[in-house]
């Protein structure tokens, strides 16, 4: 074995060990990728490691926004999800939702902010697109008996956005493909019809499909739903709403039961209630409840 051949395993080890450990050192590793010849052994190793360490957290806010826009477009293109034209309900839901997002420091502020829309369907469902476009169905709104309960549903959805649960549905393989192109020098010079742009559009398509598939069909994990319930309850309390309102909506959903929509994609309501079994301190304010009750009735009247 000559001297150079003996050096190869040692050099490989010198590269591989730090690179595998340095999963959090994003800036430096990105800089290294740019500094190496992509066809060299060093370049290939660094690029490969970078692909592996990327996660949905590495998508930037505007990228989340553009993924979310297309997720939302896919949803409203579904024949069962027509948008409600009831402006009074829409205005009301937006004020409740924005009230929560703007009074909680823990809510992640997204690229273009939060927007709420109502789906004209009896299906019991709510859908949070990455980036902050949130749909709530008339069927689910009809289960809410108060503004606090509407707020509870929206707070849960805002928590999904804050916690990036939608983006986290993008398969690792699609993320790895995406990061082959995102930020690459090749795309930098890309024209509208360049091959790299078309490849990125394909990865974009695959990523959107992953998110929509989870939102509509398979649902998020039980852990993600529990996390959104817990954070949602914190956001409720942060805005001044009754934090027990989420448990009350879940209890009602459990009593009534149903099929499809949330019933198909979420854990059983009674299981979710169990996650929220510990009480959170709350001082009732009859005057506030009366004010909210009046405007809730006005917005929801048939």
């Amino acid at each position: 074995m000559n001297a150079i051949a003996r050096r190869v395993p040692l050099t490989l080890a010198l590269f591989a060990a730090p690179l595998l450990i340095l999963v959090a050192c994003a800036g430096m590793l990105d800089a290294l990728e740019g500094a190496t010849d992509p066809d060299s052994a060093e370049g290939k190793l660094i690029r490969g490691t970078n692909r592996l360490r990327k996660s949905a957290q590495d998508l930037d806010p505007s990228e989340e926004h553009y993924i979310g826009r297309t997720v939302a477009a896919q949803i409203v293109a579904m024949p069962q999800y027509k948008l409600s034209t009831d402006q009074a309900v829409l205005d009301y839901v937006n004020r409740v939702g924005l009230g929560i997002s703007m009074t909680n420091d823990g809510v992640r502020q997204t690229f273009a902010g939060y927007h709420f829309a109502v789906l004209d369907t009896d299906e019991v469902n709510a859908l949070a697109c990455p980036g902050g476009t949130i749909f709530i169905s008339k069927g689910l709104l009809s289960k809410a008996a108060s503004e606090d309960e509407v707020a509870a549903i929206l707070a849960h959805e805002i928590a999904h956005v804050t916690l990036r649960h939608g983006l986290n549905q993008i398969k690792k393989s699609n993320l790895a493909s995406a990061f082959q192109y995102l930020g690459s020098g090749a795309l930098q010079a890309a024209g509208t019809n360049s091959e790299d742009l078309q490849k990125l559009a394909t990865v974009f398509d695959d990523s959107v499909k992953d998110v929509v598939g989870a939102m509509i069909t398979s649902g998020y994990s039980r852990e993600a739903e529990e996390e959104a319930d817990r954070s949602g309850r914190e956001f409720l309390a942060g805005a001044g709403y009754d934090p027990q309102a989420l448990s009350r909506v879940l209890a009602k959903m459990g009593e009534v039961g149903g099929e499809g929509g949330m019933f198909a994609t979420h854990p059983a309501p009674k299981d979710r209630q169990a996650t929220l079994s510990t009480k959170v301190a709350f001082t009732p304010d009859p005057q506030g409840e009366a004010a909210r009750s009046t405007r809730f009735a006005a917005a929801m009247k048939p």
Partner: protein
Amino acid sequence: MFKSLPILCLTAAAYVCLAAGTTPQSQGDTLTVTKKTTKLRAQKKLFAPGVADLKEGDRVTLVSKDGAWLSVTWTSNGKNITGWLHESDATTKKDVRLSGQGVREKYSVSEAEAARKGFNPQVEKAYRDRNPSLDAAYQIVDRIQAQTVPEADVERFLREGRLLKEAGR
């Protein structure tokens, strides 16, 4: 064949960097605004009055951090304006990918390059060209995202429901 000693050194430097902690937000750090538009606020809360309007790509300098709020200085026309920015509105990430939407004319070449490197309007257009049947759906999404409720209206709504008081804001 591995011959690049400088690359080895850089890798080692990255390791040292990690050990030292690489994501500090200390005074003097430069941050890039990642929200399409936002306000630099007089106090550290979202309903506080704005002292300046910021746009995606604007650069600010960190003064201090308090919970989820960053006190930052923005320089505009030679004048330094200091205010509060929510931590999710900006990043210290040097290679952040921007959308290029709503950015200022003074946008530098490097920032413009960053705008071309992510999932951005260009990618959405390429996707839409392949899926023309979604045009009507995108128009609906445009309408949803064009909805704006003035902050003052949201604040009034909260006060009327005796909520803002509960939140202590």
